């Protein structure tokens, strides 16, 4: 496999995009990875699953910084 730096940037962007489009209500809560289910462990050993959920949530928050209006419209349409 001959990689170029450009292919690395492409792969990184695609991965981050894949994490950013995971929908909170439809998908993550269904498989038990929602943000309201991660409050469990107090103490300083959060565990892998909680760390992963925090990572997904932070990536989604950072990536959705400028797209707030668009996701707002989507939610209104699907609330009926």
């Amino acid at each position, binding site marked *: *496999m*001959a990689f170029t*730096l450009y*292919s*690395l940037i492409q792969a990184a962007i695609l991965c981050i995009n894949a994490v950013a489009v995971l929908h909170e209500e439809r998908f993550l809560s269904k498989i038990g990875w929602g943000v309201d289910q991660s409050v469990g462990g107090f*103490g300083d*050993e959060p565990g*892998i699953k909680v*760390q992963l959920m925090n*990572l997904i949530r932070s990536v989604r928050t950072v990536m959705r910084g400028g797209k707030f209006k668009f996701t707002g419209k989507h939610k209104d349409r699907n609330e009926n």
Partner: protein
Amino acid sequence: FTYYSGFHSKPRARAAPPAGDSVLFEDTSSAAPAMNSQGYYTSGYNMGGPSNDMQGGGGMNNLFADPMANAAMMYGSSLANQGKDMVNKEISRFMTVNKLKYFFAVDTRYVLKKLMILMFPYTHQDWEVRYHRDTPLTPRQDVNASDLYIPTMAFITYILLAGMALGIQKRFSPEVLGLCASTALVWVIIEVLVMLLSLYLLTVHTDLSTFDLIAYSGYKYVGMIFTVLCGLLFGSDGYFVAFAWSSFALMFFIVRSLKMKILPSLSSDSMGMGSNAKPQLRLYITVASALFQPIIIYWLTSHLVR
């Protein structure tokens, strides 16, 4: 009113030495911070203008015989200063240069000992990184400290060696060299990112910084250089013998070094309540990163030694 006078004093101060050129510099220094290219064009236009009446008054500038060269030199130096300040500001946003200087504080004795340890780590007794009042010692004083000089030099040597190996087999072209360099760089970046991700997910409290991980990833290039050299000198058998040797040495080195940093880092505030899965997972990380090295060495060198 004070702002207004301050705004005018800036171009005057910069254009003070050549007294006759203040007309030129008033344009560029007021336009230069915001629009560099536009300032350049207006200054070019202005330089064409007064040069006709500068020829007569050239005698009062005795730094250069040609006042145009003098003006161009002053303009160029002011532009270079601005560029340097901008570069420094941008770089210091991402990494502190002091931390980077720590990794390059090496000397010959350290480099020789470290190369010996990388190739034959089985007799090295003490793998602890020594500290001096909470800061790790520089590589000059402690052989176990990680540095970035050896990985950088080894990486560049590997690229040159790859070019030479391809040239020997008449498969060389300049694009291949760039492709080889970027492939190796991409694998280093991937490995460092995977290590960072796994260390974050397992909440390992360690003092391994990003540069340390880059250093440990870069140490495999020493093994790669040795492998490629033996493959070129001794043919296919020499390649596999050297590959096995450097793989085992590198795996041993990585496991011993990372064990010191990752495994006993049960910090003092977790009173031994770590679950049973934790030390195992940390062991898996060290072993996995050690096993990854021979795979990468084989991947990046086998096409050079057919």
